[in-house]
Protein backbone atom coordinates (compact mmCIF):
# COMPACT_ATOMS: atom_id res chain seq x y z
CA UNK A 1 0.00 0.00 0.00
CA UNK A 2 2.83 2.33 0.93
CA UNK A 3 4.47 1.74 -2.41
CA UNK A 4 1.26 2.62 -4.22
CA UNK A 5 0.95 5.85 -2.27
CA UNK A 6 4.61 6.65 -2.85
CA UNK A 7 4.46 5.93 -6.54
CA UNK A 8 1.31 7.95 -6.98
CA UNK A 9 2.92 10.89 -5.18
CA UNK A 10 5.99 10.61 -7.43
CA UNK A 11 3.72 10.41 -10.48
CA UNK A 12 1.81 13.43 -9.24
CA UNK A 13 5.04 15.40 -8.82
CA UNK A 14 6.06 14.50 -12.36
CA UNK A 15 2.66 15.41 -13.75
CA UNK A 16 2.31 18.64 -11.85
CA UNK A 17 5.77 19.90 -12.59
CA UNK A 18 4.57 20.34 -16.18
CA UNK A 19 0.99 21.49 -15.61
CA UNK A 20 -0.71 24.69 -14.58
CA UNK A 21 -2.30 25.05 -11.15
CA UNK A 22 -5.71 24.80 -12.81
CA UNK A 23 -5.48 21.00 -12.82
CA UNK A 24 -7.88 19.55 -10.25
CA UNK A 25 -6.32 17.57 -7.46
CA UNK A 26 -8.35 14.81 -5.90
CA UNK A 27 -7.43 14.24 -2.30
CA UNK A 28 -8.82 11.01 -0.94
CA UNK A 29 -9.11 10.02 2.68
CA UNK A 30 -10.31 6.53 3.38
CA UNK A 31 -12.82 5.83 6.10
CA UNK A 32 -12.09 3.32 8.79
CA UNK A 33 -14.23 1.81 11.49
CA UNK A 34 -13.07 0.64 14.85
CA UNK A 35 -14.81 -1.19 17.59
CA UNK A 36 -14.49 -1.05 21.32
CA UNK A 37 -15.92 -4.02 23.17
CA UNK A 38 -19.60 -4.33 22.59
CA UNK A 39 -20.05 -0.67 21.82
CA UNK A 40 -20.44 0.61 18.33
CA UNK A 41 -17.92 3.23 17.36
CA UNK A 42 -17.78 5.93 14.80
CA UNK A 43 -16.48 6.09 11.27
CA UNK A 44 -13.36 8.17 10.94
CA UNK A 45 -11.00 9.31 8.26
CA UNK A 46 -7.46 8.01 7.92
CA UNK A 47 -4.40 9.70 6.53
CA UNK A 48 -3.81 8.84 2.95
CA UNK A 49 -3.31 11.29 0.16
CA UNK A 50 -3.24 10.52 -3.48
CA UNK A 51 -3.11 12.82 -6.42
CA UNK A 52 -4.90 12.27 -9.65
CA UNK A 53 -4.13 14.27 -12.74
CA UNK A 54 -6.68 15.18 -15.34
CA UNK A 55 -6.49 14.61 -19.02
CA UNK A 56 -7.36 17.93 -20.63
CA UNK A 57 -4.13 19.78 -21.15
CA UNK A 58 -3.95 22.90 -23.27
CA UNK A 59 -0.92 23.31 -25.50
CA UNK A 60 -0.62 26.46 -27.52
CA UNK A 61 2.25 27.81 -29.52
CA UNK A 62 3.64 31.15 -28.43
CA UNK A 63 2.86 33.02 -31.66
CA UNK A 64 -0.75 31.78 -31.74
CA UNK A 65 -1.35 32.83 -28.12
CA UNK A 66 -0.37 36.38 -28.83
CA UNK A 67 -2.46 36.86 -31.90
CA UNK A 68 -5.38 35.05 -30.30
CA UNK A 69 -5.46 37.37 -27.31
CA UNK A 70 -5.19 40.37 -29.62
CA UNK A 71 -8.24 39.25 -31.55
CA UNK A 72 -10.06 38.33 -28.33
CA UNK A 73 -9.60 41.86 -27.02
CA UNK A 74 -11.51 43.20 -30.03
CA UNK A 75 -14.52 41.00 -29.16
CA UNK A 76 -16.36 42.95 -26.48
CA UNK A 77 -18.86 41.30 -24.14
CA UNK A 78 -22.58 41.32 -24.87
CA UNK A 79 -24.65 42.55 -21.86
CA UNK A 80 -28.19 41.55 -20.87
CA UNK A 81 -31.09 42.95 -18.85
CA UNK A 82 -32.07 41.57 -15.42
CA UNK A 83 -33.53 38.05 -15.71
CA UNK A 84 -33.53 38.25 -19.56
CA UNK A 85 -31.77 36.33 -22.32
CA UNK A 86 -32.93 38.20 -25.41
CA UNK A 87 -30.38 40.47 -27.11
CA UNK A 88 -31.14 44.15 -26.65
CA UNK A 89 -31.21 46.39 -29.74
CA UNK A 90 -28.26 48.36 -28.30
CA UNK A 91 -26.10 45.22 -28.52
CA UNK A 92 -26.86 44.40 -32.18
CA UNK A 93 -23.93 46.44 -33.47
CA UNK A 94 -21.48 44.56 -31.26
CA UNK A 95 -22.87 41.27 -32.55
CA UNK A 96 -22.29 42.43 -36.12
CA UNK A 97 -18.70 43.40 -35.24
CA UNK A 98 -18.14 40.05 -33.51
CA UNK A 99 -19.55 38.18 -36.52
CA UNK A 100 -17.25 40.08 -38.90
CA UNK A 101 -14.19 39.29 -36.72
CA UNK A 102 -15.26 35.63 -36.43
CA UNK A 103 -15.40 35.36 -40.23
CA UNK A 104 -12.23 37.45 -40.69
CA UNK A 105 -9.23 37.53 -38.29
CA UNK A 106 -10.61 34.74 -36.13
CA UNK A 107 -11.70 32.45 -38.96
CA UNK A 108 -9.04 29.85 -38.14
CA UNK A 109 -10.15 29.52 -34.50
CA UNK A 110 -13.18 28.04 -32.83
CA UNK A 111 -15.30 30.36 -30.78
CA UNK A 112 -16.34 29.67 -27.18
CA UNK A 113 -19.25 31.67 -25.78
CA UNK A 114 -19.28 31.95 -21.98
CA UNK A 115 -22.66 32.83 -20.45
CA UNK A 116 -22.68 34.59 -17.07
CA UNK A 117 -25.26 35.88 -14.58
CA UNK A 118 -25.41 38.32 -11.68
CA UNK A 119 -25.23 37.07 -8.09
CA UNK A 120 -28.95 36.38 -7.54
CA UNK A 121 -28.87 32.64 -7.18
CA UNK A 122 -26.42 29.77 -7.55
CA UNK A 123 -29.03 27.28 -8.66
CA UNK A 124 -29.33 25.45 -11.94
CA UNK A 125 -31.87 27.96 -13.23
CA UNK A 126 -29.23 30.69 -13.14
CA UNK A 127 -26.81 28.43 -15.02
CA UNK A 128 -29.52 27.79 -17.60
CA UNK A 129 -30.12 31.53 -17.90
CA UNK A 130 -26.40 32.03 -18.63
CA UNK A 131 -26.61 29.29 -21.23
CA UNK A 132 -29.67 30.79 -22.93
CA UNK A 133 -27.73 34.07 -23.14
CA UNK A 134 -24.82 32.30 -24.82
CA UNK A 135 -27.28 30.51 -27.12
CA UNK A 136 -28.94 33.82 -28.10
CA UNK A 137 -25.50 35.20 -29.08
CA UNK A 138 -24.73 31.99 -30.99
CA UNK A 139 -27.99 32.21 -32.96
CA UNK A 140 -27.28 35.86 -33.82
CA UNK A 141 -23.77 35.01 -35.01
CA UNK A 142 -25.09 32.13 -37.11
CA UNK A 143 -27.70 34.49 -38.61
CA UNK A 144 -24.80 36.75 -39.60
CA UNK A 145 -23.13 33.90 -41.43
CA UNK A 146 -20.80 32.33 -38.85
CA UNK A 147 -20.58 28.53 -39.16
CA UNK A 148 -22.39 27.03 -36.15
CA UNK A 149 -19.96 24.09 -35.96
CA UNK A 150 -17.20 26.57 -34.99
CA UNK A 151 -19.11 27.75 -31.91
CA UNK A 152 -19.18 26.02 -28.51
CA UNK A 153 -20.87 27.27 -25.35
CA UNK A 154 -20.53 27.04 -21.58
CA UNK A 155 -22.46 28.62 -18.73
CA UNK A 156 -20.73 29.71 -15.53
CA UNK A 157 -23.90 30.92 -13.79
CA UNK A 158 -22.98 33.48 -11.15
CA UNK A 159 -19.60 31.81 -10.46
CA UNK A 160 -17.43 33.93 -12.76
CA UNK A 161 -18.10 37.58 -11.85
CA UNK A 162 -15.98 40.43 -13.21
CA UNK A 163 -17.20 42.66 -10.41
CA UNK A 164 -18.23 41.85 -6.84
CA UNK A 165 -19.56 45.17 -5.52
CA UNK A 166 -23.17 45.33 -4.35
CA UNK A 167 -24.22 47.93 -6.90
CA UNK A 168 -26.53 48.06 -9.88
CA UNK A 169 -23.61 48.86 -12.24
CA UNK A 170 -21.69 45.87 -10.98
CA UNK A 171 -24.58 43.42 -11.34
CA UNK A 172 -25.24 44.63 -14.89
CA UNK A 173 -21.55 44.04 -15.78
CA UNK A 174 -21.89 40.42 -14.65
CA UNK A 175 -24.93 39.67 -16.85
CA UNK A 176 -22.86 39.07 -19.95
CA UNK A 177 -21.59 36.71 -22.62
CA UNK A 178 -17.82 36.66 -23.19
CA UNK A 179 -16.05 35.54 -26.34
CA UNK A 180 -13.06 33.21 -26.07
CA UNK A 181 -11.03 31.82 -28.95
CA UNK A 182 -9.76 28.25 -29.01
CA UNK A 183 -7.18 26.91 -31.45
Amino acid at each position, binding site marked *: MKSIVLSSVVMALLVFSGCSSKEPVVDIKAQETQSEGVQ*EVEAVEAVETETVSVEDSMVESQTNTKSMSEIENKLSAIYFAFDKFNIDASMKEQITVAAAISKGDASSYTLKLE*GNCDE*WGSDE*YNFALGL*KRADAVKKSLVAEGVDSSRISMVSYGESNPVCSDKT*QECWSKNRRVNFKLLP
Partner: protein
Amino acid sequence: MKVLFFIFMLVSLLFANDATIQVIKKVDSLPSIAVEDASINYDDTFRTRFFKSLIADLNVISIFNVDRHHRVTHYNAANVLVENKDMDYVLRYSMSENDDGELKITIKLINSNEEVFSKTYKVSKKNIYMFISHAISYDVNEYMGESSVEWMKRKVIFSRIVSPHESEIVIADYTLSYQHVIIKGGFNVFPKWANRSQDAFYYTALDASSPTLKHVDISTSKVTNVISSDGMMVCSDVSDDGKTLLLTMAKEGQPDIYTYSTLTQTYKRETFYAGIDVNAQFMNRDTIVFVSSRLGYPNIFSKKLNTNEIEQRVYYGRSNSACSAYGEYIVYKARETSNAFSDNTFNLHLISTKTDFIRRLTAVGINEFPRFSKDGDAIIFIKNYKSQSSIGIIRLNHNKNYLFPLKYGKLQSMDW
Protein backbone atom coordinates in the same frame (compact mmCIF):
# COMPACT_ATOMS: atom_id res chain seq x y z
CA MET B 1 -69.21 4.47 19.60
CA LYS B 2 -66.03 2.44 19.37
CA VAL B 3 -66.09 2.79 15.60
CA LEU B 4 -66.49 6.59 15.89
CA PHE B 5 -63.60 6.74 18.34
CA PHE B 6 -61.47 4.63 16.01
CA ILE B 7 -62.24 6.94 13.06
CA PHE B 8 -61.43 9.98 15.22
CA MET B 9 -58.07 8.49 16.21
CA LEU B 10 -57.30 7.59 12.60
CA VAL B 11 -58.03 11.14 11.41
CA SER B 12 -55.92 12.59 14.26
CA LEU B 13 -53.00 10.38 13.32
CA LEU B 14 -53.33 11.27 9.64
CA PHE B 15 -52.99 14.99 10.35
CA ALA B 16 -50.65 14.77 13.30
CA ASN B 17 -47.57 14.60 11.14
CA ASP B 18 -48.33 17.16 8.44
CA ALA B 19 -45.05 19.06 8.08
CA THR B 20 -46.75 22.04 6.46
CA ILE B 21 -48.52 22.71 9.76
CA GLN B 22 -46.29 24.83 11.93
CA VAL B 23 -45.67 24.05 15.59
CA ILE B 24 -45.78 27.45 17.28
CA LYS B 25 -44.70 26.81 20.88
CA LYS B 26 -43.48 23.59 22.34
CA VAL B 27 -40.46 24.74 24.36
CA ASP B 28 -42.08 24.75 27.79
CA SER B 29 -42.96 21.10 27.59
CA LEU B 30 -39.45 19.89 26.68
CA PRO B 31 -37.46 18.00 29.34
CA SER B 32 -34.29 19.69 30.63
CA ILE B 33 -30.81 18.27 30.24
CA ALA B 34 -27.41 19.32 31.63
CA VAL B 35 -23.99 18.09 30.55
CA GLU B 36 -21.23 17.18 33.04
CA ASP B 37 -17.59 16.94 31.94
CA ALA B 38 -15.53 14.24 33.69
CA SER B 39 -12.57 14.21 31.30
CA ILE B 40 -9.18 12.86 32.30
CA ASN B 41 -6.82 14.21 29.62
CA TYR B 42 -6.78 17.26 27.34
CA ASP B 43 -6.41 20.97 27.98
CA ASP B 44 -9.19 23.42 28.74
CA THR B 45 -9.35 24.71 25.16
CA PHE B 46 -10.10 21.29 23.71
CA ARG B 47 -12.44 20.39 26.55
CA THR B 48 -14.43 23.58 25.97
CA ARG B 49 -14.49 22.95 22.22
CA PHE B 50 -15.93 19.46 22.64
CA PHE B 51 -18.42 20.64 25.25
CA LYS B 52 -19.71 23.37 22.92
CA SER B 53 -20.01 20.92 20.03
CA LEU B 54 -22.04 18.52 22.19
CA ILE B 55 -24.32 21.29 23.47
CA ALA B 56 -24.91 22.47 19.88
CA ASP B 57 -25.78 18.94 18.74
CA LEU B 58 -28.13 18.37 21.69
CA ASN B 59 -29.87 21.60 20.74
CA VAL B 60 -30.24 20.53 17.13
CA ILE B 61 -32.02 17.29 18.06
CA SER B 62 -34.67 19.67 19.47
CA ILE B 63 -36.05 17.39 22.18
CA PHE B 64 -34.46 19.03 25.25
CA ASN B 65 -34.06 22.39 26.90
CA VAL B 66 -30.27 22.26 27.08
CA ASP B 67 -28.39 23.88 29.99
CA ARG B 68 -25.30 25.69 28.64
CA HIS B 69 -23.12 25.70 31.79
CA HIS B 70 -19.85 23.80 31.54
CA ARG B 71 -19.53 21.94 34.85
CA VAL B 72 -16.85 19.47 35.86
CA THR B 73 -17.33 16.33 37.96
CA HIS B 74 -15.97 12.78 38.46
CA TYR B 75 -17.24 10.11 36.12
CA ASN B 76 -18.14 7.72 38.93
CA ALA B 77 -19.59 10.32 41.30
CA ALA B 78 -22.70 8.81 42.86
CA ASN B 79 -24.86 11.91 42.49
CA VAL B 80 -25.25 14.55 39.84
CA LEU B 81 -23.82 17.99 40.67
CA VAL B 82 -25.95 19.98 43.07
CA GLU B 83 -26.55 22.65 40.39
CA ASN B 84 -28.06 19.96 38.17
CA LYS B 85 -30.25 18.22 40.73
CA ASP B 86 -33.46 19.66 39.25
CA MET B 87 -32.60 18.63 35.72
CA ASP B 88 -34.69 15.88 34.11
CA TYR B 89 -31.60 14.38 32.49
CA VAL B 90 -27.84 14.69 33.01
CA LEU B 91 -25.40 13.56 30.32
CA ARG B 92 -21.98 12.83 31.83
CA TYR B 93 -18.95 12.16 29.66
CA SER B 94 -15.27 11.41 30.10
CA MET B 95 -12.62 11.98 27.42
CA SER B 96 -9.33 10.13 27.57
CA GLU B 97 -6.35 9.67 25.27
CA ASN B 98 -4.66 6.30 24.88
CA ASP B 99 -1.01 5.57 23.97
CA ASP B 100 -1.79 5.66 20.23
CA GLY B 101 -3.24 9.16 20.50
CA GLU B 102 -6.78 7.89 20.02
CA LEU B 103 -9.62 9.84 21.58
CA LYS B 104 -11.97 7.70 23.66
CA ILE B 105 -15.18 9.08 25.10
CA THR B 106 -17.44 7.26 27.53
CA ILE B 107 -20.89 8.63 28.26
CA LYS B 108 -23.75 7.91 30.61
CA LEU B 109 -27.22 9.37 30.62
CA ILE B 110 -28.65 9.86 34.11
CA ASN B 111 -32.32 10.21 34.93
CA SER B 112 -33.40 10.60 38.61
CA ASN B 113 -29.88 9.59 39.71
CA GLU B 114 -30.20 6.33 37.77
CA GLU B 115 -27.93 5.50 34.85
CA VAL B 116 -30.32 4.77 31.98
CA PHE B 117 -27.97 4.62 28.99
CA SER B 118 -24.22 4.35 28.44
CA LYS B 119 -21.83 3.93 25.52
CA THR B 120 -18.17 4.28 24.52
CA TYR B 121 -16.85 5.90 21.36
CA LYS B 122 -13.38 6.06 19.87
CA VAL B 123 -11.73 7.93 16.98
CA SER B 124 -8.15 7.81 15.72
CA LYS B 125 -7.41 11.52 16.15
CA LYS B 126 -8.81 14.13 18.48
CA ASN B 127 -9.36 16.70 15.70
CA ILE B 128 -12.35 14.73 14.40
CA TYR B 129 -14.08 14.88 17.78
CA MET B 130 -17.22 16.38 16.17
CA PHE B 131 -18.20 12.97 14.74
CA ILE B 132 -18.36 11.57 18.29
CA SER B 133 -20.42 14.56 19.38
CA HIS B 134 -22.89 13.91 16.52
CA ALA B 135 -22.98 10.17 17.34
CA ILE B 136 -23.70 10.82 21.05
CA SER B 137 -26.60 13.14 20.18
CA TYR B 138 -27.89 10.63 17.64
CA ASP B 139 -27.82 7.84 20.24
CA VAL B 140 -29.45 9.95 22.96
CA ASN B 141 -32.18 10.86 20.47
CA GLU B 142 -32.67 7.16 19.66
CA TYR B 143 -32.78 6.27 23.35
CA MET B 144 -35.49 8.91 23.88
CA GLY B 145 -37.51 7.21 21.12
CA GLU B 146 -37.75 10.31 18.92
CA SER B 147 -37.87 10.32 15.12
CA SER B 148 -34.48 9.41 13.70
CA VAL B 149 -31.80 12.04 13.08
CA GLU B 150 -29.80 9.75 10.81
CA TRP B 151 -28.85 12.79 8.71
CA MET B 152 -26.75 14.03 11.61
CA LYS B 153 -24.20 11.30 10.94
CA ARG B 154 -24.18 11.83 7.18
CA LYS B 155 -21.57 13.88 5.38
CA VAL B 156 -22.23 17.02 3.40
CA ILE B 157 -20.45 17.59 0.09
CA PHE B 158 -20.31 21.11 -1.28
CA SER B 159 -18.56 23.29 -3.83
CA ARG B 160 -17.10 26.59 -2.73
CA ILE B 161 -16.16 29.40 -5.12
CA VAL B 162 -12.79 30.71 -3.91
CA SER B 163 -12.19 33.15 -6.76
CA PRO B 164 -13.73 33.75 -10.19
CA HIS B 165 -13.27 30.60 -12.25
CA GLU B 166 -11.88 28.60 -9.33
CA SER B 167 -13.63 26.36 -6.84
CA GLU B 168 -13.05 23.61 -4.29
CA ILE B 169 -15.14 20.54 -3.57
CA VAL B 170 -15.28 19.86 0.15
CA ILE B 171 -16.57 17.00 2.30
CA ALA B 172 -17.76 18.13 5.73
CA ASP B 173 -19.88 17.15 8.69
CA TYR B 174 -23.27 18.83 8.84
CA THR B 175 -21.99 21.67 11.06
CA LEU B 176 -19.00 22.38 8.76
CA SER B 177 -16.64 22.14 11.73
CA TYR B 178 -14.85 19.25 9.97
CA GLN B 179 -13.85 20.07 6.40
CA HIS B 180 -11.76 18.11 3.96
CA VAL B 181 -11.03 19.60 0.53
CA ILE B 182 -11.29 16.61 -1.81
CA ILE B 183 -10.93 18.40 -5.17
CA LYS B 184 -8.79 21.48 -5.43
CA GLY B 185 -7.86 23.58 -8.45
CA GLY B 186 -9.95 24.15 -11.56
CA PHE B 187 -13.59 25.07 -11.88
CA ASN B 188 -15.73 22.23 -10.54
CA VAL B 189 -19.33 22.59 -9.44
CA PHE B 190 -22.55 20.74 -8.51
CA PRO B 191 -21.18 17.81 -6.46
CA LYS B 192 -23.75 15.07 -5.80
CA TRP B 193 -23.41 11.87 -3.77
CA ALA B 194 -23.56 8.84 -6.06
CA ASN B 195 -25.17 6.48 -3.52
CA ARG B 196 -26.60 6.28 -0.04
CA SER B 197 -23.36 5.03 1.47
CA GLN B 198 -21.57 8.20 0.33
CA ASP B 199 -18.45 6.41 -0.93
CA ALA B 200 -18.61 8.00 -4.40
CA PHE B 201 -19.82 11.25 -5.90
CA TYR B 202 -20.46 13.07 -9.20
CA TYR B 203 -19.44 16.60 -10.10
CA THR B 204 -19.34 18.86 -13.14
CA ALA B 205 -15.95 19.96 -14.49
CA LEU B 206 -16.27 23.26 -16.35
CA ASP B 207 -12.62 23.42 -17.45
CA ALA B 208 -12.97 20.61 -19.97
CA SER B 209 -13.60 21.49 -23.62
CA SER B 210 -17.29 21.04 -22.87
CA PRO B 211 -18.91 20.69 -19.43
CA THR B 212 -18.29 17.12 -18.27
CA LEU B 213 -19.88 15.01 -15.56
CA LYS B 214 -17.26 13.06 -13.61
CA HIS B 215 -17.58 10.22 -11.12
CA VAL B 216 -15.15 9.90 -8.21
CA ASP B 217 -14.82 6.66 -6.25
CA ILE B 218 -13.53 7.83 -2.87
CA SER B 219 -12.12 4.47 -1.78
CA THR B 220 -10.00 3.91 -4.92
CA SER B 221 -9.56 7.60 -5.91
CA LYS B 222 -10.57 6.66 -9.45
CA VAL B 223 -12.02 9.51 -11.53
CA THR B 224 -14.19 8.55 -14.54
CA ASN B 225 -15.74 10.74 -17.22
CA VAL B 226 -19.46 9.94 -17.38
CA ILE B 227 -20.95 12.19 -20.07
CA SER B 228 -20.40 15.64 -21.62
CA SER B 229 -22.70 18.24 -23.11
CA ASP B 230 -22.03 21.54 -24.80
CA GLY B 231 -23.23 24.49 -22.71
CA MET B 232 -24.44 22.87 -19.50
CA MET B 233 -24.21 19.64 -17.54
CA VAL B 234 -25.52 19.05 -14.02
CA CYS B 235 -26.34 15.89 -12.12
CA SER B 236 -29.46 17.09 -10.32
CA ASP B 237 -30.46 13.89 -8.53
CA VAL B 238 -29.57 10.23 -8.11
CA SER B 239 -32.20 7.53 -7.59
CA ASP B 240 -32.15 5.65 -4.27
CA ASP B 241 -30.59 2.60 -5.93
CA GLY B 242 -27.96 4.77 -7.64
CA LYS B 243 -28.87 3.37 -11.07
CA THR B 244 -30.66 6.38 -12.58
CA LEU B 245 -29.36 9.93 -12.74
CA LEU B 246 -31.44 13.01 -13.45
CA LEU B 247 -29.30 15.30 -15.58
CA THR B 248 -29.72 18.77 -16.98
CA MET B 249 -27.95 18.84 -20.32
CA ALA B 250 -28.04 21.31 -23.17
CA LYS B 251 -27.75 19.40 -26.40
CA GLU B 252 -28.22 22.03 -29.16
CA GLY B 253 -28.00 24.85 -26.58
CA GLN B 254 -31.34 23.91 -25.07
CA PRO B 255 -31.38 23.14 -21.30
CA ASP B 256 -33.58 20.08 -20.78
CA ILE B 257 -33.94 17.21 -18.35
CA TYR B 258 -32.59 13.77 -19.19
CA THR B 259 -32.55 10.45 -17.38
CA TYR B 260 -29.28 8.54 -17.54
CA SER B 261 -28.86 4.85 -16.78
CA THR B 262 -25.57 4.04 -15.05
CA LEU B 263 -25.99 0.39 -16.07
CA THR B 264 -26.44 0.83 -19.82
CA GLN B 265 -24.75 4.26 -19.97
CA THR B 266 -27.55 5.59 -22.14
CA TYR B 267 -29.65 8.71 -21.75
CA LYS B 268 -33.21 9.67 -22.59
CA ARG B 269 -34.62 13.17 -23.01
CA GLU B 270 -37.54 13.75 -20.64
CA THR B 271 -38.58 17.38 -21.33
CA PHE B 272 -39.01 19.12 -24.69
CA TYR B 273 -39.93 22.71 -23.86
CA ALA B 274 -38.10 25.41 -25.86
CA GLY B 275 -37.37 27.52 -22.75
CA ILE B 276 -35.61 26.37 -19.57
CA ASP B 277 -36.19 23.00 -17.85
CA VAL B 278 -33.76 22.27 -14.99
CA ASN B 279 -33.31 20.98 -11.41
CA ALA B 280 -35.10 17.62 -11.66
CA GLN B 281 -35.60 15.76 -8.38
CA PHE B 282 -37.17 12.37 -7.74
CA MET B 283 -40.51 12.53 -5.90
CA ASN B 284 -40.69 8.77 -6.16
CA ARG B 285 -39.36 6.16 -8.56
CA ASP B 286 -41.72 7.20 -11.38
CA THR B 287 -42.29 10.92 -10.82
CA ILE B 288 -39.95 13.91 -10.88
CA VAL B 289 -40.37 17.56 -9.93
CA PHE B 290 -38.46 20.21 -11.83
CA VAL B 291 -38.13 23.94 -12.49
CA SER B 292 -39.45 25.21 -15.81
CA SER B 293 -39.99 28.60 -17.43
CA ARG B 294 -42.95 27.33 -19.46
CA LEU B 295 -45.31 29.91 -17.92
CA GLY B 296 -42.91 32.75 -18.75
CA TYR B 297 -41.31 32.68 -15.29
CA PRO B 298 -39.62 29.89 -13.34
CA ASN B 299 -42.03 27.64 -11.48
CA ILE B 300 -42.28 24.09 -10.15
CA PHE B 301 -43.79 21.28 -12.23
CA SER B 302 -43.91 17.50 -12.00
CA LYS B 303 -43.71 14.83 -14.67
CA LYS B 304 -44.52 11.14 -14.63
CA LEU B 305 -41.58 9.42 -16.27
CA ASN B 306 -42.42 7.39 -19.39
CA THR B 307 -45.53 9.53 -19.99
CA ASN B 308 -46.10 13.08 -21.26
CA GLU B 309 -48.10 14.01 -18.16
CA ILE B 310 -46.82 17.35 -16.79
CA GLU B 311 -48.51 19.12 -13.89
CA GLN B 312 -47.97 22.55 -12.31
CA ARG B 313 -47.23 22.00 -8.61
CA VAL B 314 -46.87 25.49 -7.12
CA TYR B 315 -49.39 28.32 -7.47
CA TYR B 316 -47.78 30.90 -5.19
CA GLY B 317 -44.85 33.15 -6.11
CA ARG B 318 -43.81 34.62 -9.47
CA SER B 319 -40.29 33.27 -9.54
CA ASN B 320 -39.69 29.82 -8.04
CA SER B 321 -36.31 28.70 -9.28
CA ALA B 322 -35.20 25.70 -7.17
CA CYS B 323 -36.90 22.74 -5.50
CA SER B 324 -36.54 19.41 -3.71
CA ALA B 325 -39.11 16.72 -3.00
CA TYR B 326 -39.74 14.07 -0.39
CA GLY B 327 -42.87 11.97 -0.81
CA GLU B 328 -45.82 14.34 -0.89
CA TYR B 329 -43.76 17.34 0.22
CA ILE B 330 -42.04 19.88 -2.02
CA VAL B 331 -39.74 22.61 -0.75
CA TYR B 332 -39.02 25.44 -3.18
CA LYS B 333 -37.18 28.72 -3.41
CA ALA B 334 -39.32 31.78 -4.18
CA ARG B 335 -38.17 35.28 -5.00
CA GLU B 336 -40.02 37.63 -2.64
CA THR B 337 -38.80 40.85 -4.26
CA SER B 338 -38.10 41.52 -7.92
CA ASN B 339 -35.67 44.39 -7.90
CA ALA B 340 -32.91 44.92 -10.42
CA PHE B 341 -31.48 47.81 -8.40
CA SER B 342 -31.18 46.66 -4.78
CA ASP B 343 -30.98 43.57 -2.60
CA ASN B 344 -33.50 40.81 -3.22
CA THR B 345 -34.98 38.34 -0.75
CA PHE B 346 -35.42 34.68 -1.58
CA ASN B 347 -37.28 32.44 0.86
CA LEU B 348 -37.95 28.73 1.09
CA HIS B 349 -41.53 27.48 1.20
CA LEU B 350 -42.93 24.04 1.94
CA ILE B 351 -46.07 22.62 0.37
CA SER B 352 -47.84 19.31 0.52
CA THR B 353 -49.30 17.96 -2.70
CA LYS B 354 -52.24 16.65 -0.67
CA THR B 355 -53.28 19.88 1.07
CA ASP B 356 -53.45 23.60 0.23
CA PHE B 357 -51.14 24.72 3.03
CA ILE B 358 -47.98 26.71 2.29
CA ARG B 359 -45.42 27.12 5.05
CA ARG B 360 -42.69 29.74 4.75
CA LEU B 361 -39.49 28.33 6.22
CA THR B 362 -37.08 31.30 6.13
CA ALA B 363 -37.36 35.04 6.68
CA VAL B 364 -34.40 37.10 5.43
CA GLY B 365 -31.52 36.93 2.94
CA ILE B 366 -31.00 34.67 -0.06
CA ASN B 367 -32.09 31.16 0.86
CA GLU B 368 -31.52 28.63 -1.85
CA PHE B 369 -30.54 25.12 -2.85
CA PRO B 370 -33.00 23.29 -0.55
CA ARG B 371 -32.44 19.54 -0.19
CA PHE B 372 -34.49 17.11 1.90
CA SER B 373 -32.64 14.67 4.11
CA LYS B 374 -32.97 11.05 2.97
CA ASP B 375 -35.55 10.43 5.71
CA GLY B 376 -37.45 13.70 5.10
CA ASP B 377 -36.90 14.81 8.71
CA ALA B 378 -34.89 17.91 7.85
CA ILE B 379 -34.07 20.28 5.00
CA ILE B 380 -30.57 21.54 4.36
CA PHE B 381 -30.08 24.75 2.38
CA ILE B 382 -27.61 27.51 1.48
CA LYS B 383 -28.09 30.94 3.04
CA ASN B 384 -26.27 34.01 1.76
CA TYR B 385 -26.86 37.03 3.95
CA LYS B 386 -24.72 40.15 4.37
CA SER B 387 -21.67 38.66 2.59
CA GLN B 388 -21.78 35.53 4.77
CA SER B 389 -22.38 32.10 3.27
CA SER B 390 -23.88 29.47 5.61
CA ILE B 391 -25.41 26.03 5.56
CA GLY B 392 -28.81 26.01 7.20
CA ILE B 393 -30.76 23.09 8.68
CA ILE B 394 -34.52 23.22 9.18
CA ARG B 395 -36.09 20.67 11.55
CA LEU B 396 -39.56 20.53 10.06
CA ASN B 397 -41.42 18.83 12.89
CA HIS B 398 -39.72 20.97 15.53
CA ASN B 399 -40.03 24.33 13.74
CA LYS B 400 -36.38 25.20 14.28
CA ASN B 401 -33.67 26.55 11.97
CA TYR B 402 -29.92 26.30 12.59
CA LEU B 403 -27.14 28.08 10.67
CA PHE B 404 -23.52 26.98 10.28
CA PRO B 405 -21.36 29.69 8.66
CA LEU B 406 -18.60 29.04 6.12
CA LYS B 407 -15.29 30.65 7.08
CA TYR B 408 -14.30 31.70 3.56
CA GLY B 409 -15.53 31.52 -0.02
CA LYS B 410 -19.10 31.34 -1.27
CA LEU B 411 -21.17 28.16 -1.31
CA GLN B 412 -22.14 27.26 -4.85
CA SER B 413 -24.07 24.03 -4.34
CA MET B 414 -24.21 21.02 -2.02
CA ASP B 415 -25.67 17.64 -1.27
CA TRP B 416 -26.00 15.44 1.83
